């Protein structure tokens, strides 16, 4: 019911651009960004509840864990929509990615936003893998072995991602946002709101998790402490958020409320409302005085809520049997316990997340000794992690060595935000791939031939699609000149006599071409700006082999990174330019010969 007005508001906001929601002269961001922060916060709790409980050996229902993970995925999907719609020019979102396009334009890696984007994408992929593995566990029990390593990869990633998001704010000059406490503050807020969301979901499923209530209480105290501290330091205080998210949850201490279903739900909802208000005030400090909430803002809010509910319920319904499972009953313990015997306690994993297999954590005395590099977790977690880290480092070195990246400061400090997520991504992919190969493929072989054909066709089509997209991207599909004119008319007369004298060609060359190609015969030594690639090196032999007519066409129609000069230069002038180029190359050759 909320979805329709929500969609209308979203469409209106997309059509009308950023002016449509509440922003004043001092705020450039407004509602979508606060909603983004809110939803990305919610997205963290699911993984937290599932992955962190898993790695800390806290026993948890399969059903609760699944629901938590699903809520992560759904809120992540909702969260991603908001920053995209917040963009002024939506179709240029890909420019934020740290990929050089055909023109070797590169994102500004000093900006936290770039890493924000990467981290969120990687987080989404990993959460999907985690959920998928969990889902497939029922069918392929072998997969449950890699759940714990995945959990270990996800645990730091959750904190990492939210830190990067919070640094978007903390890096700015807005006085309300500055400070090193921001990451902690964001993470606490995020996890707290996420707990409340999971609490709500579990309530609707009719479950109750006492542990969750304890955690909510702890979260509220932590957040209150930060708020009070912030109030004492800077005097900023959001009263309504404090009441909703700080004071009301304390009612959980009252057992009458704690034990009544309605009471719990109301508390969870009040936490969500409080945190939402807090995010809104955070992003646009002038809310209420200079900024007024409009219909569009409410619509966006409604869109977020409704899209989440729709997505969550849809997937929940679709996967209903898988989540509930025929063999899982309420109170059943997760199958991760089977793994527990094999892993050498959580201490070993803690060593593993800090990096490559530092090895000697020894197993508990009761268990039999396994050589460190043969141990189960070395195989499942440390080895992929090691490969991931070394690949990441290799990638950084490779980037540093690339000529085109010379102008981009790709130093270790600059790429620091991406190192862990990237290593985690590679590690997770390796781990899942290995498990898939070992556990799932043998099972799949029992499938009917037709089904296998369909699946392999889907996989191949996907790969081709990705490869095609990358090809189009690097081939310059993304950077076509705005007015490309195609002329098939043949060149009228062919003559090599200079209709334009060389002196005039020199002037044209110096004004039009020299900015990239240089005034002297060296062509490419002068390289104006960091945003253009190095022009093609031309020497006499090359010019002769290409031929005058092709070069004239290149000048007029453009090629690869060169712009079309048709309309700005006549054909005769272009021909003169080519002849001038020949002369420059010959002069350069001569002077080089003399130098020898």
């Amino acid at each position, binding site marked *: 019911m909320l979805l329709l007005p929500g969609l209308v508001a979203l469409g209106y906001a997309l059509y009308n*651009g*950023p*002016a449509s929601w509440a922003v*004043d*002269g*001092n*705020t*450039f*961001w407004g509602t979508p960004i606060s909603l983004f922060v809110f939803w990305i916060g919610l997205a963290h709790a699911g993984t937290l509840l599932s992955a962190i409980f898993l790695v800390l050996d806290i026993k948890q229902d399969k059903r609760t864990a699944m629901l938590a993970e699903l809520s992560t995925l759904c809120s992540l999907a909702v969260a991603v929509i908001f*920053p995209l719609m*917040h*963009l*002024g*020019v*939506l179709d*240029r*979102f890909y*420019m*934020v990615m740290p990929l050089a396009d055909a023109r070797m*334009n*590169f*994102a*500004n890696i*000093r*900006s*936290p*936003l*770039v890493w924000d*984007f990467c981290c969120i994408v990687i987080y989404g992929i990993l959460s999907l893998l985690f959920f998928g593995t969990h889902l497939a566990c029922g069918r392929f029990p072998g997969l449950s072995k890699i759940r714990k390593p995945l959990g270990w990869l996800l645990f730091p990633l959750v904190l990492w991602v939210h830190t990067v998001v919070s640094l*978007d704010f903390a*890096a*700015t*000059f*807005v006085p309300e946002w500055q400070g090193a406490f921001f990451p902690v503050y964001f993470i606490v807020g995020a996890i707290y709101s996420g707990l409340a969301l999971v609490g709500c979901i579990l309530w609707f499923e009719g479950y109750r998790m006492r542990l969750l209530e304890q955690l909510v209480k702890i979260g509220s105290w932590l957040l209150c402490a930060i708020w009070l501290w912030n109030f004492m330091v800077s005097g900023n205080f959001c009263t309504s958020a404090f009441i909703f998210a700080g004071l009301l949850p304390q009612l959980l201490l009252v057992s009458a409320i704690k034990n009544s279903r309605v009471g719990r739900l109301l508390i969870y909802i009040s936490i969500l409302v409080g945190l939402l208000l807090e995010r809104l005030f955070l992003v646009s400090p002038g809310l209420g005085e200079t900024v007024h909430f409009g219909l569009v803002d409410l619509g966006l809010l409604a869109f977020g809520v409704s899209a989440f509910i729709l997505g969550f319920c849809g997937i929940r319904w679709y996967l209903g049997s898988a989540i509930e499972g025929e063999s899982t009953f309420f109170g059943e313990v997760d199958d991760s316990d089977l793994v527990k015997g094999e892993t050498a306690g959580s201490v070993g994993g803690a060593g593993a997340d800090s990096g490559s297999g530092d090895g000697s954590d020894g197993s508990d005395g009761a268990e039999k000794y396994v050589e460190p590099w043969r141990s189960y977790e070395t195989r499942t977690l440390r080895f992929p992690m090691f490969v991931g880290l070394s690949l990441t480092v290799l990638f950084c070195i490779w980037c540093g060595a690339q000529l085109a990246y010379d*102008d981009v*400061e790709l130093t270790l400090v600059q790429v620091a935000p991406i190192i862990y997520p990237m290593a985690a991504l590679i590690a997770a992919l390796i781990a899942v791939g290995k498990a898939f190969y070992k556990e799932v493929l043998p099972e799949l072989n029992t499938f009917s031939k037709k089904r296998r054909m369909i699946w392999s066709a889907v996989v191949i089509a996907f790969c081709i699609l990705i490869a095609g997209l990358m090809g189009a991207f690097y081939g310059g599909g993304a950077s076509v000149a705005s007015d490309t004119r195609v002329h098939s008319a043949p060149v009228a007369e062919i003559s090599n006599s200079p209709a334009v004298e060389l002196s005039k060609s020199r*002037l044209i060359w*110096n*004004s039009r071409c*020299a*900015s990239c190609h240089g*005034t002297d015969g060296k062509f490419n030594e002068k390289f104006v*700006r*960091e*945003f253009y690639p190095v022009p093609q090196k031309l020497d006499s032999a090359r010019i002769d082999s290409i031929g005058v007519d092709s070069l004239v066409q290149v000048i007029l129609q453009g090629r690869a990174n060169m712009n079309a000069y048709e309309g700005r230069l006549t054909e005769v002038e272009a021909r003169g330019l080519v002849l001038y180029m020949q002369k420059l190359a010959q002069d350069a050759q001569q002077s080089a010969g003399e130098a020898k």
Partner: protein
Amino acid sequence: MDRRDFIKSCSLMAVAGLLFGCRKSVLEGLGTGEGNLRGPSPKAFEDEVRLAMSQARGRLDLVRVNAPGKMKSSGLLEGAGCNNRFGMAIDLDACDGCGKCILACNMENNVPLVNEDEAARGRFMHWIEMRGGVPFMCAHCGDAPCEKVCPTGAANHTPDGISAMMYKRCAGTRFCGANCPAKARKFNFLDAQKLGLARKFNKDVPLREKGVMEKCSLCLHRLQNDRLRFKTESLGEWRGRGVTTACAEGCPKNAIVFGNWLDSESPLVKATSGRQLYAPRELANLDPSVVFIMGKR
């Protein structure tokens, strides 16, 4: 009246009518090329400047700064010839806050109008705005915070010390705007071309599309034209002499001086020598290129 007089007066009237139809306002001659006659009348632009000045609220809190020097060569600028650093000085002793610079800038840079809704919120596109009776524009900080956070690299620094914008690269994240301590950046909330609010007075400057950031460019196109001329005629090292910005040109009191901080012959260095330089407090330690001068001659 005989027949001859009648024909004479008739033809005179016809000629007068024709001449009346041929009349041409002075401003129409300003722009050539397409889109010249389209767009709101210059009167509308004047009215908007007046409206913006009447609504202007902000104040400038000026503190003393040193004269801008050679820029610290960051990684991006290494190897580029850093012999120029363009900037401006606004003489507050001469300036009387008439606002003619705003109009001159708008016409030079094709700054669009805004609709009533935006005007009511006090969001004009003007690159120069009045703060406490003082014209204020982007200070082209040497250590610009806006450029650091731009994810796509659309906001960048030229080797000549200008904080430039690549409109085609701007994705509109507005991170730069949020990070500018002086809020000198303007965001195209409206599609001015579609709404008929933009007018191309100057063919050298492109019209900006909806959803991109813009701000004072120190009349970059004028500098580039001059540089091209230097290159074409091989006139030696280019120091940007003789170029001036539209606001400096339009100032009746000559309170705005444009020049090259690193060129001892530039009018800017001459005008500021022996004077005390000021900058807004929030920009003072960001190495601004546009400064204010007052007192002490």
